[in-house]
């Protein structure tokens, strides 16, 4: 029987302290940003802090789950996700013109969210079960596993989420050793099909891209977000206007300033210097995460945690790119800084996984 002390010692060995430190710093920073972005609402910050603590706890618990559990979870989770997506396509609720929600007996869920984890899990499991040398057939199956949910989500339509799901799966395939030639060929194909893709896009999606190229074409409509966030960032300058002194957010010019556009609030008040520090913190977390995935004892762990870190990077880059005006407006929050409990829980669950995959015993190849 394990003593209390022994249990906690063992529990603690699965935590990566450098990563924990950086995540903690980021969460601490987010409290200040949220206080300012919410027009100094203490309740709001307490909620955010509560979610932060809950997420840290979740991370520690997940870090203690042995790798084997995840392997067994991969296929059922993926299949459930696909079935739910099919359910959405046939009987989902239409919100804002797209079918994303499925009404279950007690609650509503967005099955596409499940796929964000199920996709890399499934593909990591798939490559884990293959032989050391991969054939074209293996890649074809992987591509099929990737494309099925992606297309279902894209059909809703929710192109942003579909691309993020596809990316998380694509990262696994690349990390698994997708030959350079195929990678290069795919890049070429993607570039060549861009004009084709344009015709597939919905009008509002085209609008977002056109707005990115020239926000002033519709300054009060589609261009409003990007113009106001550029003004917020730009007026911050090198040192920023100071904490709680950002006019763009405090006077409500900046839309969604506690969630998707929180980076503009930060940039306005802390300037380029603050942004540089924030970017460094994110870079530190990402590099530490990659290091952990590189040293994971088995392929399943390496692929899964690598994909999670790269997805994390993708979220950071897409959000900051959107706020600073180099990417079109898509509804992606800034991980750990944006207000929102479930997003924070999912991100920290991911980091718990990365830590656990690094520290648990190597899988026995079945």
């Amino acid at each position: 029987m394990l003593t209390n002390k022994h249990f906690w010692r063992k529990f603690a060995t699965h935590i990566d302290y450098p990563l924990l430190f950086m995540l903690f710093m980021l969460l601490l920073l987010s409290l200040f940003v949220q206080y300012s972005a919410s027009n100094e609402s203490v309740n709001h910050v307490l909620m955010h802090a509560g979610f932060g603590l809950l997420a840290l706890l979740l991370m520690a618990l997940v870090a203690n789950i042995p790798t084997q559990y995840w392997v067994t979870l991969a296929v059922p989770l993926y299949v459930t996700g696909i079935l739910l997506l099919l359910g959405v396509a046939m009987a989902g609720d239409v919100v804002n013109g797209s079918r994303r929600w499925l009404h279950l007996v007690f609650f509503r869920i967005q099955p596409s969210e499940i796929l964000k984890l199920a996709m890399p899990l499934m593909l990591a499991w798939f490559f884990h079960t293959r032989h050391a040398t991969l054939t074209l057939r293996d890649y074809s199956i992987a591509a099929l596993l990737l494309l099925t949910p992606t297309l279902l989500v894209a059909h809703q339509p929710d192109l942003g989420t579909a691309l993020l799901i596809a990316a998380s799966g694509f990262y696994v395939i690349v990390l698994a050793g997708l030959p350079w030639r195929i990678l290069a060929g795919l890049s070429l194909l993607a570039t060549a099909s861009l004009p084709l893709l344009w015709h597939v896009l919905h009008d509002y999606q085209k609008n977002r891209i056109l707005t990115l190229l020239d926000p002033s074409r519709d300054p009060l409509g589609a261009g409003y977000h990007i113009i106001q966030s550029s003004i917020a960032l730009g007026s911050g300058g090198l040192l920023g206007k100071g904490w709680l002194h950002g006019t763009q957010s405090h006077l409500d010019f900046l839309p969604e300033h506690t969630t998707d556009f929180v980076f503009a609030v930060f940039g306005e008040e802390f300037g380029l210097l603050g942004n540089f520090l924030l970017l460094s913190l994110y870079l530190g977390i990402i590099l530490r995460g990659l290091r952990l995935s590189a040293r994971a004892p088995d392929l399943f762990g390496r692929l899964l945690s690598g994909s999670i870190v790269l997805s994390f990077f993708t979220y950071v880059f897409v959000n900051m790119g959107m706020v600073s005006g180099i990417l079109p407006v898509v509804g992606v929050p800034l991980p750990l800084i944006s207000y929102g409990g479930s997003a924070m829980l999912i991100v920290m669950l991911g980091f718990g996984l990365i830590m656990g995959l690094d520290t648990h015993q190597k899988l026995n190849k079945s």
Partner: protein
Amino acid sequence: MKPSMKPSMELPAQDRARINFQQRIYLATSFILLAFALLLARLVDTQIIHHASYLKQAENNRTSSIPIPPNRGIITDDHGVVLANNYSAYTVELAPAKIHDLNATINDVAQLITITPADKLRFFKILSESHHFDTLPLRTHLTDAEAARIAANRYRLPGVEVKARLFRHYPQGMLAAHLLGYVGRMNDADLAALEKNNQLNNYLGTDHIGKTGIEQSYETILHGQTGFDQVETDANGHIIRSLAQQNPVSGDHLTLWLNAKLQAIAEQSFGDFRGAMVALDPNTGGVLALVSHPGFDPNLFVDGIDSEDWNQLNDSPDHPLINRALRAAYPEGSTIKPFMALAGLHYGVRTPEQTISDPGYFAFPGSSHHYRDWAPNGHGIVDMHKSIVVSCDTYYYRLANDLGIDRMHNYLAQFGFGQKSGIDLPGEVSGVLPSRAWKAKISRQPWYPGETVICGIGQGYNLTTPLQLAVATAALANGGTVWQPQVVRGITDSKTGRYHDTPAKITRVIQIPPADRQIIVDAMIDVTRPGGTASHACMGAPYLIAAKTGTAQVVGIRQNEKYHAASLTMRHRDHAVFIAFAPADHPKIAIAIFIENGGHGGTTAAPIARAVMDYYLLKKIPAITPASTPATPTIDHVD
């Protein structure tokens, strides 16, 4: 396709996979570093390179200037009687840009306060005329309770606002309406004019502007300087706090030469007659009274006149909106004679003693056409003095013929006939003082000698405004100074509170030998004495009056026809004309009156002048017996 990497012999499969994986991690790392570098570059571009521009945009976002309209200057008469002032009242205004369905919103507002169909009509009329205003009034003059009711329901009435506005008020009502003019809502034409004069910024927040009269001609002085409140606003336009304030500067106050009591007496004296009167101070050119009758209430225009009132004023055959004193031109009739006599003396064509024998008409040698005197049997032996006292037409037919039209024109032009006087009121017309050159311009016909003859008694082409005739009379009274008449006596600077006189302006000084003038003045005094044409109206005055009566023909009377006032319809009856100044030895007031279809000047116009002079010189308030249109004229055609 076969996998790219063949199994190597040196390494176990597992290590090989790890190396392969690490390569991919390095690739990902470089990709990530590149992406972060791109982000950083973009941030440097936004936050450093374009910082100044974005900072300015943020400031523009956050601050806005709210104009504070200035108080319009007050207008008072010579004795401080207020003729135009301002008061504050609540209005409910709609912002058309923020309202999808104006009718629905108006109905919502009508649930809270009374909105009449007339209010609605006026609102849509204003809406169609003005495109530069954020908000337009739906109803004005709300009670406190009504204003509070709207304010309390503001949250469910987006685009509806209660505002405290300053309104122009003319406390004397119809008094001197033509002279004061009025303010009205600015329309697109007004805005275009302001933009042209670079005045648009000063009119932000102002919605009324002077439309006629003094209100128009002194607009710039009366309006003042708009102030600005620099405020911080949020994205919804709510004001957070005031950052800086620049106070408005009120418009300057105007003091007029006008005497409100005198004006009131003159207006009342007109009774039902149409016509105009101008009374000037012959020593300054100040306008003591200026009547155009009938008049109107300028207060009707301030709030946007409703169509019923407008049609009534605009379609009336009496044309109450026209300022007859400077916009209507009539033949002078016999009031031209004193000036003609002076011309005769000036050119040496007549001496005072020279006489004519008046058979009752003038005829060119060898012509059977008779230019008739008003007295069918003539006036017998007539010298210059008698020619004025009895208003002998034959004397002046002959004098005109001897002078010739161009000399008449050149002499009379000095008195200001046929030219704008330059009064500080808008819309003055110049009238006609005929000459050969003038006729050549308007017609291919040559000048006929007969036209000269009838011009000699103030008929024919001659047309003059009451104002011009008053200016000429004042010049006769003061010995030759032609003033540029002025309504405004002085301006009080609203900032310093200091009053300063508007300088009097002399148009020209006519050289009239005092002896010549004395002959004319003496004759004009005798006009008011027994045997003169104005003796009845001027009887018993304790001061000396110099005057001349006249009638201006409205319809031509054929050669052998007799003028019978009773047989003519009212509108074809002659206009009555009268000029006077008093006291004749030290003139303090000079008057010219036209009464449309008033018949003889001595009968209808002279009593008005007498009442005005009595009040001005004696402070005597007349027992009001306003001249009224007589059913049948008691005196037949007398000139």
